């Protein structure tokens, strides 16, 4: 059995033989370990403002995010995505960008986020990324760039380049969700309607690469066209599945988040109206 740092295209026929990737375990272990250390050892003794102790829900969400990250970066999803099926590589993208970072950010208590952006430069970066323009450019730039044939075909066999791309995807996922979740009030997060609009833009922009994949007459990437076939799935069918996964899968995830935000906003507005009415009736009696 070959042990590798990270997974890459091998050109071997596909088999369900397990393959270990040391780098994946190190990454996942260090993320989970750092979180556990922070929650156990770094939790403040006193909480000020809206800070509060880490809840079970937060631990669960963070754990779920790490689990998604692990599933996406380890065998078999990573192996299939690296050298066999573009559709699985696209699924991996969704897990790395649309699912895991959002869960992990929701799972980080505010005191921890505040500690992470302590210092002038980290705070300024965090504030800058709370505005939608830079995240929109970065996230969609990474998406478009990493779908260029020269990139997809060029990095296939080099595990360190695949690792670099995977890490870039994960970081772009945090950048995607940071303004949408708006966890810290001191960074002046966007209003809910603006956040919904921001996510809506992130649904529309990936339509461009998704359309190329879905409606391409021939396979775009030699890496997947010339790969040993898996269950006789043709290269074009695989490419169409990738396009649909990106468009429909990505759209559904972001749409679900938009729906949740809408209801949260609606509840907030209702509560405010009730409070206003209460105040008015108090003043008239």
């Amino acid at each position: 059995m070959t042990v590798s740092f990270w997974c890459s295209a091998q050109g071997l026929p596909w088999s369900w033989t397990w393959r270990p990737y040391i780098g994946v375990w190190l990454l996942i272990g260090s993320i989970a370990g750092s979180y556990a250390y922070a929650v156990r050892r770094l939790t403040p003794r006193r909480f000020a403002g809206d800070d509060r102790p880490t809840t079970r829900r937060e631990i669960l969400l963070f754990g779920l995010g790490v689990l998604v990250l692990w599933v996406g970066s380890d065998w078999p999803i990573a192996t299939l995505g690296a050298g066999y099926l573009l559709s699985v590589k696209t699924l991996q993208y969704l897990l790395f960008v649309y699912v895991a970072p959002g869960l992990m950010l929701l799972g980080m208590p505010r005191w921890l986020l505040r500690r992470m952006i302590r210092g002038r430069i980290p705070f300024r970066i965090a504030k800058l990324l709370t505005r939608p323009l830079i995240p929109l450019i970065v996230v969609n730039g990474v998406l478009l760039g990493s779908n260029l044939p020269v990139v997809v075909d060029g990095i296939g066999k080099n595990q360190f380049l695949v690792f670099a791309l995977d890490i870039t995807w994960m970081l772009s996922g945090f950048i995607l969700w940071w303004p949408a979740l708006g966890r810290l009030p001191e960074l002046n997060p966007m209003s809910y309607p603006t956040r919904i609009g921001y996510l809506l833009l992130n649904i529309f922009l990936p339509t461009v690469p998704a359309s190329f994949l879905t409606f391409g007459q021939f396979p775009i990437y030699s890496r997947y066209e010339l790969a040993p076939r898996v269950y006789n799935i043709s290269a074009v069918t695989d490419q169409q599945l990738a396009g649909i996964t990106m468009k429909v899968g990505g759209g559904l995830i972001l749409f679900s988040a938009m729906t949740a935000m809408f209801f949260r906003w609606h509840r907030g507005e209702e509560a405010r109206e009730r409070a206003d009415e209460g105040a008015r009736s108090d003043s008239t009696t």
Partner: protein
Amino acid sequence: MFRTAAIALAAGLMLTGCQGTARTGGGRPAFRGHVLGTPLSKPEFTLTATDGKPFDFRRETDGYLTLVYFGYTHCPDICPVHMANLGAVIPQFPPSVSDRIKVIFITTDPARDSLTVLRRWLDNFDRTFIGLRGPIDSVNAIQRAMGLPEAVIEQRDSSGGYTVGHSATVVAFTPDNKERVLYPFGTRQEDWAHDLPKLLKTWPHS
């Protein structure tokens, strides 16, 4: 497997005196395959087709753009990719082009590739692909005649399975019955889409 294929391709190209990719005046390649400097004549041989009938290669393919590939159905990588790519591209041509192309797969593993196995495997790619089977000595002689190296049994595993080292090249015979262009592994669907109609036009049936 890939090493053998690469050696086989190199040997094949040397044997046939390959000229490389032909270019137009503007410097862009006229064909995506490797055009032979001196075309070879179409060999004469008869093997058994998957319907059990004798297949006279020269007579049956006369005037067609004929793509010949030597491989085997247990091939884990190159053969299915070549066949899948051809099977994906040829049906996209108008009938005036696709009806003038014949794809012929000659097994280099007659021990395991019965006519039924061969037919079932080819049907995964295209029902019109022609499968031929014959004694391995005859198949090797045909490969030599086409300037390709002979197939060799490479590795045997404990269960008795084995791989066959063979040329990874698709040989194109133009309608004038000459072997003119070789397509190595790595030829993509868009390359086939570019070359096949051009081959029909450039060297029509004389």
